[in-house]
């Protein structure tokens, strides 16, 4: 976080609930965080902790007839949640864009790569057909796809997973967005391609002032790319810290557990990999008190009764844990 700089995106008390036949599920429950211009923020947590729903809520991509969103999403002085649908549509893909997890399914199989990239260019930049096509070729070049003039006319099935993710990145970058939500951009790719995509994203970021919210459960990716990390558990923020501090001095037992469960390449073969016991609680039947207490190795009596409030150590550091008041 840069001192004195106003945040580009400021999420305050975001609460997203889904109305299902079994009852109302609150997937995101009072999430707050800021994203500053030019920074990469890691949003970390297990599957089902509400990371992706947070991103989809910000972009208002959830079906409004089945969800309710409360709170504030301030972007560039405007609350995105109170914009009318048409204004919101122009923000999507223009100033805020998104990279999805599944490069194999996130491109339309019957449109060429060029058609898909030029679609948002024509919409947001008001480019003509020919200009948009030329810009699409340029974008493919920027994301380092070999022979872009040929690839631009090809259908997605002719491209490998890594290439498709590059195309998705090209689409997300095409209108010079100020903020990109990258929802597990490397999860579906194999390790060598993952490294390439991360290096590509880092390289592209250097040349622009775009902020990235990197949604992932891969702490390795976070360590490499993010400057600040927000850890989520069961729909809430449990810890926030600058990346180096998080890796050296995690304060929440959940974050500690996550860090311990990262396998070490070439580590001691005889020791078992650490795991966090149990599974993420069912959002319909959330445990009383701290939602992590049934899985926590340091549970106290109070954890079972009351949910801990957020303790701010300084502007960059906060933890929601009863233990955090002690110097542990």
């Amino acid at each position: 976080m840069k001192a004195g700089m106003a945040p580009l995106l400021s999420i305050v008390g975001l609460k997203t609930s889904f109305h299902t036949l079994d009852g109302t599920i609150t997937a995101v429950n009072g999430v707050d965080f800021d994203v500053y211009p030019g920074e990469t923020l890691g949003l970390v947590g297990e599957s089902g902790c509400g990371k992706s729903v947070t991103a989809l809520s910000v972009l208002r991509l959830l079906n409004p007839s089945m969800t309710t969103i409360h709170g504030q999403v301030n972007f560039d002085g405007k609350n995105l949640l109170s914009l009318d649908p048409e204004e919101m549509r122009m923000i999507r893909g223009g100033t805020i864009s998104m990279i999805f997890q599944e490069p194999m399914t996130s491109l339309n199989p019957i449109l060429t790569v060029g058609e898909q990239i030029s679609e948002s260019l024509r919409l947001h930049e008001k480019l003509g057909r020919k200009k948009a096509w030329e810009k699409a070729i340029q974008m493919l070049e920027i994301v380092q796809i070999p022979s872009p003039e040929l690839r631009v006319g090809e259908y997605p099935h002719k491209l490998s997973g890594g290439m498709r993710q590059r195309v998705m990145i090209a689409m997300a970058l095409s209108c010079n967005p100020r903020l990109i939500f990258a929802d597990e951009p490397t999860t579906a790719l194999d390790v060598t391609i993952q490294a390439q995509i991360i290096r590509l994203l880092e390289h592209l970021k250097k040349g622009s002032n775009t902020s990235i919210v990197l949604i992932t459960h891969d702490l390795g990716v976070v360590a490499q790319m993010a400057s600040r990390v927000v850890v989520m558990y069961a729909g809430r923020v449990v810890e926030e810290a600058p990346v180096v501090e998080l890796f050296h001095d995690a304060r929440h037992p959940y974050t500690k557990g996550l860090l311990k469960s990262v396998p070490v390449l070439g580590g001691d073969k005889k020791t078992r990999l650490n795991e966090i016991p149990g599974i993420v609680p069912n959002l319909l039947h959330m445990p009383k008190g701290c939602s992590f207490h049934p899985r926590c190795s340091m549970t106290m009596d109070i954890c079972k009764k009351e949910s801990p409030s957020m303790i701010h150590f300084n502007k960059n550091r906060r933890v929601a844990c009863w233990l955090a008041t002690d110097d542990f």
Partner: protein
Amino acid sequence: MNDIDINTKNNDSDSVGDIDSSSSRGWAKLKRNKAALVGGIFLLIYIVCAFGAPVLFWGNPSAPDLINSLSPPCAKYLLGTDELGRSILGRILYGSRVSLMIAVGVVGVGLLFGVPVGLISGYFGGKTDFIIQRFTDMLLAFPGFLLALALVAILGVGLKNTVISIGISMIPIYIRLVRGCVLTVREEVYVEAARASGTKDRHIILRHILPNVLAPIIVQTSLGMGTAILFAAGLGFLGIGVQPPTPEWGSMLGSARAYMMGKPHVATFPGIAIFLAVLSFNLLGDGLRDAFDPRSKI
């Protein structure tokens, strides 16, 4: 930067080049399907008859020749004559124009209203979908032919009204089909990605969803043409379809009913014409379905 380039060339340029797109694989499968091929050939003959009727049959198919009435097949009248001495061959050839017109018109009405309504119903969901689906339920509660019959009773007889009536009875089938397909495609990540990049709903529906639900629509169109011909013949047979003297297969059958025992050829040939036309559309439709069904891997 440099090492990214090197990696790109080494690992990431592995395009899966020669895997063909699903639609061209579908066509290849279709060509291998013998039944569909036969259906296609019949259909071709049928279309040639319809367009080439004036060339294939010189003369007026409605001109009576009372001296030769109810004549069995002979050199002058290859398929014999009907009760007014009109050439059955000529009437079948000209009748193919009428039935093709009906088939195309009916499916046109079905597509024109059913596809957009189905797209809207499936894409937007919610109350819009609920209202449209209850309306569809209402139309589907009637057997198709009965609905067409009731509509003819309201609109009156004639070619145009036959097309409109049968067309309306087909609309709910298209609505249901398209809506069902849209519900699946709507959840695809590429549709969400299109929404995430600010694409307009209209654009998403026309460019991202419609092309991906075309295959089942094509199949239904082919099968629907067969049904339309059959329905039109049914209405004609009952005397409330296309009116004489316009040569129409169903009304030919209707008037031949009286001579069924003594002069069976009068009813047989139009019957065979209806049978082959419907068969050709059904065989082709089945073939198309097998070819484009993602579950069939042959």
